[in-house]
């Protein structure tokens, strides 16, 4: 669920041009930080299997490998994360890796382009950790994402 707000304080967007920033929309999104490639492509399984704890390890590898992270909102929409809480990356940064698969509430600016929601996260308001515990249903997805200590 998104909450448009007029609050302007606390945003880490001071370096942007004010005239341009005005065309974004201040929102808060609650949802899960996801691996956008596996979610959209379906190559590793259905959406229920490529989120949550089942897909956590793969989400880490994908983020490190260059896949932009997204935020799967409670509204069912995916928000492509351009930057998050001062980390100048859309993937693979320390913040993105630390939040992979976590349920968070993000406060930031939404920019709609080409039918895609782009989110510049100013602040992670809350981080509930991994709450979508689906590994008991699916196991690790995919199984080969788990490193073999013997290799």
């Amino acid at each position, binding site marked *: 669920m998104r909450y448009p707000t007029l609050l302007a304080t606390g945003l880490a967007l001071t370096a942007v041009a004010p005239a341009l920033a005005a065309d974004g929309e201040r929102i808060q999104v609650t949802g899960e930080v996801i691996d956008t490639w596996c*979610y959209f492509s379906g190559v590793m399984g259905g959406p229920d299997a490529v989120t949550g704890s089942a897909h956590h390890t793969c989400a880490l590898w994908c983020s490190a490998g260059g896949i932009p992270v997204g935020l799967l909102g409670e509204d069912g929409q995916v928000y492509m994360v351009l930057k998050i809480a001062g980390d100048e990356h*859309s993937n*693979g940064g320390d913040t993105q890796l630390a939040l992979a698969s976590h349920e968070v509430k993000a406060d930031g600016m939404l*920019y709609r382009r080409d039918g895609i929601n782009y989110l510049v996260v100013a602040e992670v308001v809350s981080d509930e950790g991994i709450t979508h515990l689906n590994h008991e249903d699916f196991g690790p997805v995919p199984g080969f994402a788990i490193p073999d200590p013997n290799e």
Partner: protein
Amino acid sequence: MRGLLALLLAALGASVGSAHEGHIHPAPAADLSPQAPLPFALGGPFLLIDQHGMPRSEADPEGRAQLLFFGYAACEQICSVALPVMADAVDKLAATGVRVTPVMITIDPETDTEDVMRKRLAEVHPDFIGLTGQPAALERAYSAFGIERKRLFADQSGNDVFAHGSFIYLLDAEGRFLTLIPPILTPERIAEIVSSHLGSGAGG
């Protein structure tokens, strides 16, 4: 363990073609409504050297729009996904009369010699342009698009593996930024976005 990253993303790259029909949660259709300007500037002038040793700026000498990606020839991670997707999108656009040049600027100039890029990119698409240059010239291009790059480790073959920005940028023929495109989109969707910005029959 390091090989897992390459294994995972190589598997992803190999699956791109079949994934198009397997969409379970397709991204929303292209929206032609007004675009929200991004809160940071993207694009700018650069002058680099292509894989044939010819100088090339941000402008396309043939007057075509461009799909620009920052990556490296030996990359088995996101580049193995993005470069073929770009090539497929270019072909789909060409079939509709929209000519677009795919361009990669290397983020690993130590490894990506002209010869290395010429061989690798020719495997992806005959029109693919690979650009390298002196460190200062490359830094100017990275800075224009906010590209961060970081060497992570050397893989089992001794090749450096980098983390790097992975969005695709649509530029017009003069090299002006038009929009950014997530590398996870299908070629069909990328072509749709490009067409919405250029219109059918654009490009030379």
